[in-house]
């Protein structure tokens, strides 16, 4: 039964390993969690299988479907809600007077009986509707309902937390597919920080000298070591204007937050597609243009190039001379992009557009090919994949 959960987690792309699975079984064997308590099982499987909060949301989703599909689990919830608890809950909700006042014609005992019957009948989770146990709806059972005789299952009770905590999906924000937040991105960008010890430049290694001298019984033994510096330089080209406006600001923030990670970081802007010139100051874009040829002269080949743009435009803007919507370009955008890609060792494209839409846009397909398919979605996992590629 648990193997199914493990397989489902694996399939959903969460890195779970056999060792962790065995740890979990081991824990269950030792009675870490009460076998009748799904909540405890949920928490325990989470702490033993999931090692990064960015997978919590995925885990919740998988757990939810696992839970719904397993009839065995249904039996467990049934056991999980002991009669006394239901009664207690009901007593909490309705005072005696209220019970008397219940406008519905059914009696108190009937309510209880019906609740049990419904628990029996119910085979899967249900929302809305007016009979089944679930959330919302006008049924008497489940939570957030508004029948005066309704029974709240799970939810607000203090000593028992909600049955389906995973449905809250409180870690949604931590899912790396969704959230772009400077802090997380900084972590992703740190991949790029490459402290390469290169053999040419040497610096005096004091610590090593002292220790080898003393090991040498006091005869001086001087040691050197290769210098350790952060050598990564980054060049950013950011699409500005039009469909990109909403993304541009966040891109700038992200990368300036990560500035400390690199030896140098330079921004340039372009509009839609890169042509012969790019600019640093969007206000003076007409007068202060840096040509791509100049950039190639100024920056070393090992500079990492990141292009950020949604790649949404007419294909003419990429492949034909004069295709630019702003000026007459002698050479097509594809020529300039090829030039950048072939000069620099590594170039990637980050695209804020949803990856599912890429195939519908002709220009995206062309540009993706131009950057050797190194186009990544602009979210945390995309950036992480891109940084891995750049750091190679």
């Amino acid at each position, binding site marked *: 039964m648990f193997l199914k959960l493990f397989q489902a987690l694996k399939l959903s792309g969460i*890195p779970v*390993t056999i*060792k*962790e699975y065995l*740890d979990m079984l*081991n*824990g269950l064997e*030792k009675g*870490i*969690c009460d076998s009748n308590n799904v909540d*405890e099982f949920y*928490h*325990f499987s989470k*702490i*033993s299988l*999931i*090692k*990064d*909060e960015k997978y*919590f949301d995925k885990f919740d989703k998988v757990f939810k479907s696992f839970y719904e599909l397993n009839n065995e689990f249904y039996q467990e919830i049934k056991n999980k809600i002991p009669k006394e608890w239901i009664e207690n809950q009901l007593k909490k909700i309705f005072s005696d007077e209220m019970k008397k006042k219940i406008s519905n014609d059914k009696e108190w005992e009937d309510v209880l009986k019906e609740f049990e019957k419904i628990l029996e009948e119910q085979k899967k989770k249900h929302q809305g509707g007016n009979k089944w146990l679930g959330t919302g709806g006008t049924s008497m059972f489940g939570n957030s309902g508004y029948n005066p005789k309704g029974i709240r299952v799970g939810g607000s009770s203090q000593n028992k*937390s909600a049955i389906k905590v995973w449905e809250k999906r*409180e*870690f949604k924000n*931590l899912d790396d597919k969704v959230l772009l937040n400077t*802090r997380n991105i900084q*972590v992703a960008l*740190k991949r790029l920080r490459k402290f390469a010890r290169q053999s040419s430049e040497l610096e005096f290694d004091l610590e090593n000298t*002292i*220790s080898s*001298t*003393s*090991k040498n*019984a*006091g005869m001086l033994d001087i040691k050197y070591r290769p210098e350790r510096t952060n050598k990564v330089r980054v060049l950013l080209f950011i699409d500005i204007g039009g469909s990109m406006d909403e993304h541009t600001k966040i891109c700038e923030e992200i990368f300036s937050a990560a500035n400390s990670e690199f030896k140098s970081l330079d921004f340039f802007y372009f509009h839609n597609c890169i042509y012969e010139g790019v600019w640093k100051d969007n206000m003076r874009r007409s007068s202060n243009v840096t040509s791509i040829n100049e950039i190639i002269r100024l920056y070393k080949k090992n500079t990492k190039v990141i292009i950020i743009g949604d790649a949404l435009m007419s294909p003419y803007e990429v492949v034909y001379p004069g295709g630019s919507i702003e000026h007459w370009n002698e050479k097509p955008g594809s020529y300039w992009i090829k030039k950048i890609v072939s000069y620099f060792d590594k170039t990637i494209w980050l695209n804020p557009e949803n990856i599912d839409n890429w195939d519908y846009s002709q220009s995206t397909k062309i540009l993706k090919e131009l950057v050797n398919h190194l186009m990544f979605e602009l979210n945390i996992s995309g950036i992480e994949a891109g940084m891995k590629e750049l750091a190679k």
Partner: protein
Amino acid sequence: MKKKFSSTNNYIASNQLIEAVNAAVILEKPLLVKGEPGTGKTMLAEEIAATFEAELISWHIKSTTKAQQGLYEYDAVSRLRDSQLGNKKVQDINNYINEGVLWKAFTASKKPVLLIDEIDKADIEFPNDLLQELDKMEFFVYETNEVIVAKQRPIVVITSNNEKDLPDAFLRRCFFHYISFPDEKTLAEIVKVHHPNIKKNLLNYALSSFIEIRETPGLKKKPSTSELIDWLKLLVADDLDLEDLKNKNKNSILPPLYGALLKNEADVELFQKIAFMARREN
């Protein structure tokens, strides 16, 4: 070890956290705790130690910390000095082996709690260098050819602020718990633990101001629970009446002594702007 970890008089732990700690203790695995700064990660280890009446051995990691330092260090320099002074001590290499925190934890007479604090501060390879030591709970001392084996496996608590990704091999060996930011009710409980005599209306006022600040979109640094506690300490120390506080503060949109919560001038400005707009709408 029959005892189980639970919330104490001065530490409020969620059920999930309690379960995570107990699982880690029973299965003798390191517990990796992540979460926003100021959610009580380090305090957790202290509380575990108190619950199990165990000694707390802390290892605070810095960017320069090496895994070897946690095991032992061979003090070659003092040996050199001693040899030149003709000290007898120099004959025995054991005199120059300084025990590290892991060594101490392994050889403690009673099961200790070992806290490895802010492991993400260290070099990216640091956790990898500790794999074997934390897994087998033993290590080898090259200088003396001896193997140090743990008498009993210590309870290991590792905290991380998420500045670096930890290597997969390391993560596989740990249990993982993420302390999420407490909700208002839990916050109130936490405050009560630290300031038992706080006046109800002051508490409500403070909590709502605190939450208002935290919810300001785009803050560079959100105030943490520990900052809330410190801020309340200031408010309580002044022993001002809530009305006085409000009067004194009538002309300002910022809560009194806001410096304890907002620690960045850009954030102060942003909060002022947003709060001002919100109040005008009302």
